């Protein structure tokens, strides 16, 4: 499995008491999507949610949207609402999983596995509650038959988990910098426990970097750059006019009063980034609950998949904008590209490098670097190596 063991490695070089070099490398399989060529769209959509199971909803729906756009057959509004709901639930589940399973490790405490365990079943149940035939990623739209009680139950389970990880009423904690600071100072629950540690150690603004947010539907030159990306360099190290941009919870929630306040004080440092994921949990829960009320049933659509064309599918995945590009020729995939948010957020010249370059190399640097990585939330494991030069 060696070749498939994808990850990010961070190497810090120390000179004169501070971090003098930051080398970020990725062994993520950004070219593997090429092997999808030669298959039919239906085959691609069947396999993607399994090989990218951890963000399978986003991958399946990006594929469906790319195929629909290539064929000029966009999904009707009820389908787009249902898909948005599925993406929100996956986003809540992924962020909550991070807080319950991974954040305790950053403070040396035990993960809350009992709560974490309920998250993936909740996502699966939501898919079934909307698409009983399992065709949620079908181009054109699957048979949408909303099982409202089941759906309400899933949202209620997720709300319960949010209360558990906040150990308080989530909306109140995230209302303003003041309510947030009061909640952090109590340090109860896995989220406040981590933020309390960070605050006590004076690390609220650690790793701060200028935030270059991506436009909502991606950079303007996205389609042109992907189209011309025959060697895969763009998909591995994407930029917009030479500038690596960010796409994540922080860039999506910058206008939220709490996040705007934290950004003003701490820039794109640890607390702003961790808090943005918490805000995203609460905001996504609200949006999901609203959407659930407005959903209506819709018949499945048999999109004509035999055509030709090129299309992009863009979805907001938990970690940022996920883009799929497909070229179809008479119903067969000729080219398939995937541009994932981690390639933007962990760009070798991106926010992690800016945030760590020049940082003091005193005791605990590895822990601080580990926090900076976790704040940027990679979708793969990240190793850290520190080399001290004379």
């Amino acid at each position, binding site marked *: *499995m060696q070749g*498939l063991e994808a990850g990010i490695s961070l190497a810090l070089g120390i000179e004169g008491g501070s971090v003098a070099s930051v080398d970020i490398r990725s062994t993520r*399989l950004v070219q*593997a999507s090429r*092997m999808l060529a030669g298959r039919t769209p239906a085959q691609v959509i069947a396999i993607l949610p*399994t090989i*990218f199971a951890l963000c399978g909803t986003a991958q399946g729906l990006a594929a469906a949207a790319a195929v629909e756009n290539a064929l000029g057959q966009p999904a009707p509004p009820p389908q787009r609402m249902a898909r948005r709901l599925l993406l929100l639930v996956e986003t809540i589940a992924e962020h909550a999983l991070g807080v319950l399973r991974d954040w305790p490790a950053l403070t040396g405490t035990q993960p809350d596995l009992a709560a974490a365990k309920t998250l993936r079943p909740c996502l699966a149940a939501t898919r079934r509650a909307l698409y009983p035939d399992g065709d949620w990623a079908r181009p054109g739209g699957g048979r949408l038959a909303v099982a409202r009680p089941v759906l309400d139950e899933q949202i209620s389970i997720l709300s319960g988990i949010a209360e558990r990880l906040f150990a308080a009423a989530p909306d109140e904690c995230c209302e303003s910098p003041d309510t947030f600071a009061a909640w952090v100072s109590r340090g109860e629950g896995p989220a406040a426990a981590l933020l309390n540690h960070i605050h006590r150690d004076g690390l609220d603004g650690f790793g701060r970097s200028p935030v270059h947010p991506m436009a909502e539907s991606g950079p303007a030159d996205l389609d042109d750059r992907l189209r011309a990306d025959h060697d895969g360099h763009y998909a591995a190290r994407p930029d917009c006019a030479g500038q690596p941009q960010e796409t994540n919870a922080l860039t999506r929630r910058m206008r939220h009063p709490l996040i705007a306040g934290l950004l003003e004080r701490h820039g794109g440092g640890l607390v702003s980034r961790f808090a943005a994921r918490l805000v995203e949990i609460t905001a996504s829960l609200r949006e999901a609950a609203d959407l659930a009320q407005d959903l209506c049933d819709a018949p499945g659509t048999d999109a004509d998949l035999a055509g030709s064309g090129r299309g992009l599918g863009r979805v907001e995945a938990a970690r940022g904008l996920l883009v799929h590009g497909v070229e179809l020729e008479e119903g067969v995939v000729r080219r398939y590209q995937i541009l994932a948010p981690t390639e933007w957020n962990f760009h070798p010249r991106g926010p992690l490098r800016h945030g760590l370059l020049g940082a003091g190399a005193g005791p605990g640097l590895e822990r601080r670097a580990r926090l900076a990585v976790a704040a940027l939330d990679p979708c793969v494991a990240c190793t850290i190596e520190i080399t001290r030069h004379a």
Partner: protein
Amino acid sequence: MCMAVPSRIVAIDNGMATVEAFGAIRTTSLMLLEDEVAVGDYVILGAGGNFAAEKVEPEVAAEALAYLADVLDSGLA
């Protein structure tokens, strides 16, 4: 990409599974799995591999493994 490699369970001991994929063996916790699993079942591991995230049906695993074998053979991995 965060490729999920379906891994076959070869042994289970006290909530920990020994799993195999493409000849590589590793151990992973079953604490986050909703489904009961047994030796011979396939699971997908979460990022970092410390926890199994999901049980995968054998035919779905076979299809994904065939694709991933193509990726390995092509040198894209």
